């Protein structure tokens, strides 16, 4: 049994349900402040306790799932689209085009991604949409290399030559004939990339450069957590656990997909 795939899928599907059913699952309004109930420990009414403004941590966490998942999904989608197209072009054409794209990839990989993102965020407003775009625009380089490597493996195989000889347009050859055969690294990177994007978003929000309160994000709940760490452990534990489980979930899924997609024994 492909344990990684099974457990990874279970976690991810569960997270999706939580995100979609957020209004149903949460007991309270995540924005509602109640200053008389500040920093209350976990209880039946407030399963994860309350934060420094009396808001229910559980509801905020549930809504924050939406933030994490959407940032993860959309930013990686941007990265995958850019990376796959550039990888296809680079691998297929070779020569100068390949050189230019690969040097661009090399340059981008020189920068520590996180600091690059910090730099960009310093110039633009920190909000959820900008984060998605920035993470997307900084995550494509390694995918380009993987896709290019796969393209190189198959571009001289007979079925590609046969498509060329049939007079098909290059676009058709790239997207209809070659792309389905290079999808394996794309799919795996997608899943692992979401994990990484969620971590990045949490880190940015923690630093105050990501999702701004009152919008809930696991990262920004942790921001208050650090200030009250000795008297309100629940503000650090639960968001931390949530990030951990989510990242593990997507990593397992990615690993499981890699195993599923790797060439199997011939029967």
């Amino acid at each position, binding site marked *: 049994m492909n344990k990684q795939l099974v457990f990874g899928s279970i976690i991810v599907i569960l997270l999706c349900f939580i995100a979609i059913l957020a209004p149903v699952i949460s007991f309270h309004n995540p924005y509602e402040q109640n200053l008389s109930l500040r920093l209350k420990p976990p209880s039946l009414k407030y399963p994860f306790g309350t934060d420094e403004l009396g808001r229910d941590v559980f509801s905020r966490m549930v809504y924050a799932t939406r933030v994490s998942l959407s940032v993860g999904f959309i930013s990686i989608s941007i990265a995958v689209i850019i990376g796959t197209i550039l990888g296809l072009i680079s691998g297929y054409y070779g020569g100068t085009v390949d050189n230019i794209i690969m040097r661009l990839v090399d340059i981008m990989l020189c920068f520590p991604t996180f600091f690059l993102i910090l730099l960009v965020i310093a110039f633009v407003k920190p909000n959820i949409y900008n984060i998605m775009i920035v993470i997307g625009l900084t995550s494509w380089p390694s995918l380009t290399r993987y896709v290019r490597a796969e393209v190189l493996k198959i571009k001289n*195989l*007979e*079925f590609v*030559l*046969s*498509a*060329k*000889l*049939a*007079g*098909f347009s290059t676009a058709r050859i790239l997207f*209809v*004939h070659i792309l*389905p*055969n290079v999808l394996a690294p794309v799919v795996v990177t997608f899943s692992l990339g979401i994990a990484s994007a969620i971590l990045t978003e949490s880190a940015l929000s923690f630093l105050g450069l990501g999702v701004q309160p009152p919008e809930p994000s696991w990262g920004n709940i942790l921001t208050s957590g650090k200030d009250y760490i000795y008297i309100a452990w629940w503000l650090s534990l639960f968001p931390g656990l949530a990030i951990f489980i989510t990242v593990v979930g997507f990593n397992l899924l990615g690993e499981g997909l890699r195993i599923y997609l790797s060439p199997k024994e011939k029967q």
Partner: protein
Amino acid sequence: MNQFLLEVKDINKSYSIYSTLFQIEVAKKPVLRNISFSLEYNTSLGILGPSGCGKTTLVKIISKIEQPDSGEVLFEGKNINSYTKEEFATKIQMLFQNPYTMLNPKLSIGFLLKERVKQNFVLTGQKVDNQIIYSRINELLEITRLPKNILNMYPHQLSGGQRQRVAILMVLSLNPKLVILDEPLSALDISLQAQMLNFFSELKEKFKFSYLFITHDKNLAEYFCDKILYMYEDGRYELQ
């Protein structure tokens, strides 16, 4: 109508040899030296020679996969570079050797055929509608005696012989005048080879195309071909 279907004139091609360390070009190895020959309509020409004598290179040049260093190739009197790639696809087609890599593993047989039949119709300016496409596909399936359910299958579900026939179908769907057969039989069992040879003869009769049949088996070439081009390792050649 031009006298010759194909004319190859003074083709030269060399490959560069690179040093392992810095990939600097250290030498040029000539593979084809001033090679010329012509091919009539509805004739089969065998290209016979050991590995490395340049037969695959020659054929890659004729099918525009590679460019020669000098010389030209004329098809029906016109230089092959003057045809657009769509037009050229209906003139010359090639059948490859390896049954495992000749079909795209991720595309169904039906899809592969449909896109080529469509391409053919678009080029000849006929109206394209699904009914016409499917009836043409059915026609092709009958010619190769393949069952209709093969359209939903993928290459890995087919045997070597079936894949060979699907590849032939794909070639036929574009109605070429010249079909290049690059060692099409070497990966097959003897009984299948016999069947394929019969089939190639039948197709030639029916569709009146010419063949360039590449092989390293002398008996095969002498049985099947009207003329044989012998290629030698040092670049010499002879036509018989």
